[in-house]
């Protein structure tokens, strides 16, 4: 191996910056290291620089500063067609003047592969996405989901070790999207390929990935496996962006024995787990997941901290109930409860006590 320092890293971004106009940095100081076979998702709101990162990796944009390495060698000066990276585009970019089989055969032809080999590989790739019967059709004769499969097959047919996907499921309806999410992850794991996947859909990111990089403002805010990302957000952006979240604002009174005492803006005091607050007097935003909030006295966890709340609205959603509460002067506090036979259905106007474990309540940056 060329790189002895980090045998594990297959894809590496080191201190990468990118500016299009020479004034604003679209990507600011990106550091990322992926082992072979990982499924990594870049998740972030629109305009946060995800596509730019992907394009730099694919070679269609050059990094303004920093180093991008693939398998230990810097690829900054290697043109896209020599990088051997498979790519699935958001609008699929299937060549409209070629049939499906010709589309798939294209990367093999430019690699000067013989005709019989090509046919075998094309057929195998088509079978892999269950589209064996469609080789003779044109892309325009396929549905969105079918085009998606072909785009995937085309990116895989020349057996790249790294595949990039830029919001590949963005144009599909919900059901199809869920089915394809499942298929893509299975295929990726079965073939053992490394995938960098871009999406702005957090559910997609959580369900598909080994690790998720949350992007905002040209930086990675947090890079963690889905469960850690959801349960232990490192800052309030991540907490807000991933899943549903209740926030309460206040000031840290004191930090003692791994708990922070926070005085909310209406004067109430609560315990919270200090995540990125370090001393008394700092403003903070505490975040609690709606499903970790309890209001049933019998089930209130041991040592839970309680606050008064007024029920504003009860929303029946089938599998769950969402209840909107007024807590600490704010009326956008939600509680999620499972639709179970013994579950209490709250009524608007009702006065209740809510509580949670201090560990579930994270004091983040303001």
């Amino acid at each position, binding site marked *: 191996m060329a790189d002895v320092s980090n045998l594990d890293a297959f894809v590496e971004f080191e201190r990468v910056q990118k500016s299009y106009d020479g004034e604003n940095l679209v990507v600011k100081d990106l550091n990322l290291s992926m082992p072979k076979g990982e499924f990594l998702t870049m998740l972030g709101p629109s305009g946060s620089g995800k596509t730019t990162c992907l394009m730099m990796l694919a070679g269609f944009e050059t990094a303004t500063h920093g180093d991008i390495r693939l398998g230990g060698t810097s690829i900054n000066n290697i043109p*896209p067609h020599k990088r051997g990276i498979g790519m699935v585009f958001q609008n699929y970019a299937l060549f409209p003047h070629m049939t499906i089989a010709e589309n798939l055969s294209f990367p093999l032809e430019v690699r000067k592969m013989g005709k019989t080999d090509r046919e075998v590989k094309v057929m195998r790739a088509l079978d892999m996405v269950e589209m064996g019967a469609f080789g003779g059709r044109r892309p325009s004769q396929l549905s969105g989901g079918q085009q998606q499969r072909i785009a995937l097959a085309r*990116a895989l047919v020349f057996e790249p070790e790294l595949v990039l996907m830029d919001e590949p499921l963005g144009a599909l309806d919900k059901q199809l999207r869920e089915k394809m999410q499942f298929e893509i992850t299975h295929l990726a794991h079965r073939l053992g390929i490394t995938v960098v996947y871009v999406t702005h859909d957090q559910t997609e990111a959580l369900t598909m990935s080994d690790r998720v990089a949350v992007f905002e403002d040209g930086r990675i805010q947090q890079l963690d496996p889905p469960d850690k990302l959801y349960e232990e957000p490192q800052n309030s952006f991540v907490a807000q962006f991933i899943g549903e979240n209740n926030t309460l604002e206040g000031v840290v009174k004191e930090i003692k024995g791994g708990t922070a005492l926070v005085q909310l803006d209406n004067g109430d005091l609560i315990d919270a787990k200090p995540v990125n607050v370090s001393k008394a007097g700092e403003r903070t935003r505490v975040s609690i997941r709606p499903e970790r909030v309890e209001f049933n006295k019998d089930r209130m966890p041991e040592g839970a901290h309680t606050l008064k709340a007024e029920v504003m609205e009860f929303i029946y959603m089938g599998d769950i109930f969402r209840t909107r509460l007024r807590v600490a002067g704010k009326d956008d506090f939600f509680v999620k409860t499972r639709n179970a036979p013994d579950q209490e259905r709250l009524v608007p106007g009702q006065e209740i006590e809510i509580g949670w474990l201090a560990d579930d309540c994270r004091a983040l940056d303001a």
Partner: protein
Amino acid sequence: MSDTTQSGPVLAADGTPLKRSLSRALRRQKIRALMLIAPLLLFVLVTFILPIGDMLFRSVENQIVSETLPRTVVALKSWDATSGETPDEAVYAALAIDLKMAAEAKLHTRVGSRLNYEKPGISSLFRKAGRQVKKWDVENDGPYKARFLDLHKGWGDPDVWSTIQTYSPKFTNGYFLNSADMKKGADGPEWRPEDEQIYWLLLKRTMFMSMAITLSCIALAYPVAWILANLPARTSNMLMILVLLPFWTSLLVRTSAWKVMLQQQGVINDTLVWLGLVGDDARLAMINNQFGTIVTMTHILLPFMILPMYSVMKTIQPTYLRAAKSLGATNWTAFWRVYFPQSVPGIGAGSILVFILSIGYYITPELVGGTKGVFISNRIAYHISTSLNWGLAAALGAILLALVLILYWAYDKIVGIDNVKLG
């Protein structure tokens, strides 16, 4: 639901069959659509369809002989043109009556000119005879054969009579034969003598030069359209103004400017002489020939090639090229295998436009074409305004029209007309 289970036609809510009420609703829509396009339809009918129809009619119409000389035409029917003898007295008598009436109505010179297209010299026969016959008493001034021969010995030439006979039917293919450098002989069509042949040459030249103009337009327009389509919108809009600039200056000015550029004492020759590339005594002839016509018309028609190409290329997303490269294609392969095929509809649309415009182009070849660079359209213009042989002009026009339609058909067969995109 009950509607679908009962037998018989499906009924609408008011009990009428669904099909009928649907077609009634559609009919109202159709009438409204028709009314919206009615003004244009009328305009096109009056300014386009009718003139073309009239032109096609004129190219075969030949009623003037049978209408002006009705008796003569009937009397000539039994005459055998191959006998080499003049017709008998009855024909001359009929001619006397016809000519007298024609002369009184001042129509004799027109039939003379018409027949003159086919046999030069006839018009003066008719002009002179008409003047004299007016004074005759056609009832009892015979015998007319002798009197006509007295007027002009041309009336004793069997060729004159055979021309009248040949062109006496109401319709003729004579103009078309003429357009193809042929004429009606005693036994069917025959070629005109070599030195009278011109249209075939002109047609070939028109086709060849239009092709050359189209090809040079493609070569020049493709890179320009590509740049326009791939630049950021603001820059490309500004460059687009430069492309459209020629439309804002007079065609005559642009053509004359090329004269200044290309003539022997012109800018380009001066520069070449100054650079020592050509001698002062060997200045290049670049105007009043085919070269000048091709250069000038390429310049004038270039926007018609750029615009359709641009609008097609604008729709080709850059991700196609990126996809090709990510699949391992070099820049050239990506362009040639992925971009170029998708831009072909633009080339097709531009080529059809430029080719059709150039085979009918008139002003520019007239001004810079000299004798070697004129198109068939210049000949048509000549027949319309100078020789006044409208029938021949119409036949040439009809041939040009047929040619365009054939090319259009061929294009449809080879490339497919639904591949043509103008935007």
